[in-house]
Each structure stands twice: as structure tokens, then as C-alpha cells.
């Protein structure tokens, strides 16, 4: 398979994940810019992929590192905390996905990545490889983040 076809296939297979990541690291007005940056970085790095890591691990690394660079640019602002609903806000707590989205918005970019990788279904060991941490460290963070989410938003 030539490199172009392999790349296109990889993008198609991971389209949903890339879209979801871009949405959670950029605002409604520029998430498509971030998505394009991710694709461009993936294309630039694709030739240098050396198979030492799984391809999905590599893809998430490139996408998340691009997203981190994106949020550090001066025009990118995190959504303020007051946009995050408190438990019991009318119409919010009923949809866990909506609440989860708001919860992600209040996390700092690094914490957010831990939760996002888990939501994408990556096994703990792979999350650890993406982040450069031990599997235990990832487990500790995941447990804490889930508890925060459940206590703050769903146990009301």
C-alpha cells in the first residue's frame, strides 16, 4: 500500500476521534482550524513513523500535542468556569454527555487529555504510552477524574 493510501485510510479510521479531540481543545469558531492543524501535523510526521509504538498511540500523541500547542496560542482561551453548569442546573444534568462536555471544558488541557483518551476507549497501558506516564499513574488520575465528575455533576 502506498503512503498516500495508508495515510488516507488512517485518517478515515480515526476521523471521529480527531473530530472529538479538536472540539474539546478549541472553541466553536476554530475547532475546524485545529482539526486541519492536526491533519497537517499527522501528514508531516507520517513518513517518520517508525512503528516503535502502535499507530493509534502515535496518532493520539500527534493529535494531542498539536492540540496543546493550539490552546497555548494567545487567542485561545479556555471556556470560563461559570459556563460549567452546577449540579441541578435545569436542563443540564439530564444529559450526561452534555454535562461531560462541560466538565471537560473546566479541566486544564493536560487533565482533559487523560479523560479524553479513556473516553476514546484506549486501554490504560496505551493511555500511559500516549502521555509518557506509568499505567498506575494513569489509573490514579482516571479514578480521581471520574470521582470528580460523578460527585460534582451526577450525584445531586
Amino acid at each position: 500500500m502506498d503512503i498516500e493510501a495508508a495515510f488516507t485510510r488512517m485518517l478515515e479510521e480515526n476521523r471521529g476521534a480527531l473530530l472529538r479531540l479538536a472540539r474539546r481543545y478549541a472553541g466553536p469558531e476554530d475547532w475546524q482550524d485545529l482539526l486541519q492543524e492536526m491533519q497537517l501535523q499527522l501528514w508531516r510526521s507520517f513518513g517518520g513513523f517508525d512503528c516503535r509504538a502502535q499507530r493509534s498511540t502515535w496518532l493520539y500523541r500527534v493529535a494531542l500535542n498539536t492540540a496543546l500547542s493550539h490552546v497555548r496560542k494567545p487567542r485561545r482561551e479556555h471556556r470560563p468556569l461559570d459556563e460549567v453548569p452546577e449540579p441541578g442546573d435545569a436542563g443540564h444534568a439530564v444529559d450526561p454527555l452534555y454535562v461531560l462536555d462541560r466538565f471537560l471544558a473546566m479541566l486544564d488541557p493536560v487533565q482533559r487529555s487523560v479523560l479524553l483518551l479513556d473516553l476514546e476507549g484506549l486501554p490504560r497501558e496505551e493511555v500511559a504510552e500516549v502521555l509518557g506516564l506509568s499505567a498506575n499513574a494513569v489509573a490514579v488520575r482516571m479514578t480521581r477524574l471520574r470521582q470528580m465528575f460523578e460527585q460534582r455533576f451526577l450525584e445531586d
Partner: protein
Amino acid sequence: MDWNQLRHDWQDAAPAAPMMAVDELRRRDRSLWTKVRRRDLLETVAAVAVVVWFGLMAIVALVEGAWLQAAFTLLVVAWGAVLPFGLRRSRRLARDGDHGVSMLAYLQAQREAALAQARMLERVWLWYLAPPAIGITGLTLARDGFTPGALGYLAVLVLLYAGIAWLNRHAARTQFRAHADELQRQIDALGDEHA
């Protein structure tokens, strides 16, 4: 709450957006490199102009036996010859780095790059300003002596260079060192077992 169900719902939800075709990615990549090459070319042309102009002045000074003038002029020539390499080095430091490494390694590399960039800007007076300042000061005084015109010209030059040095130090502190501090906070947040 069933976290697995939440995860499942999460993965089912994706907004619609077209992915870029490889041809478009290739075009954008090429376009960026064209800009980089154009900037490199412009710097090289400017450096060549400095080298040629001051080189000719040095030759004239040597022919006339004005050794002091020739020496200071040659200092400017040497600066003009090495400047493009210095500028390219600074751009290499500022590059985004390999995105395919782990997040922790990426943040650490970014921090190192930001600190290297800050150090380079803090020393801009040494590698960017001092050689031409010394060269032009020496050349002016050797040629014109301590005349009011020469001293006025040199005073303006010193003020200009001091301003450039100050702006660079300011940028190093407020942009690159601040950026490095922010990256360190992220590294700490990621690496801290109790975060």
C-alpha cells in the same frame, strides 16, 4: 452512572466535518516551506549585500593603508557572513519539534526550546548587536575622528541598539520564560502522582 455506557455514547457522537485530502495537505506543507525558503533567501541576500558593501570598503581601506578602518570594516564583514547561520539556528530552536513523542516528552522539549529561545534573545547584544556596533563605531571614529557629527551619529546608533537589546530581553522574559513556566506547570501537573 455506567461509565462504559457513557464511553459508548461518547464514541458514537461525532460532529460532521470533512477531512482534508492528501493533495491539499501536500499543498499546505509546500506553501509553508516556500515561505521559510523565501525568508532564508531574503536574509541571505541582505547578508551578502552587507558583506559586499563592507568588503569593498575594507579593500579600499587596505589599498589606502588605513589599517584600523580596514580592521573594523572586516569585523562587520565577518558578522554579515555568520548572521544568517545565527538566525537559522534561532529558528531551529523555536520549531515545534516532533509531535509523535509522548505528551510528557513533548512538553519537556517545548520547555527546553522556549528556554533556549529566551537565552538566545537575552544574548542578542552579544551575537547580533555588538559586532556591528563595535565595527561601525571603530570605522566611524577611525575615519572621521571625534567630530560632533560622528559622535552624534554614534549616540543615535547606541540608543537604537540599546532599544533593540531591551526589546529582546523584554520578549525573552514576558514571552519565552513565561511560556517555559507555563509548560513547567503542565509538566508538574502531568507528572505529579498526586495531581
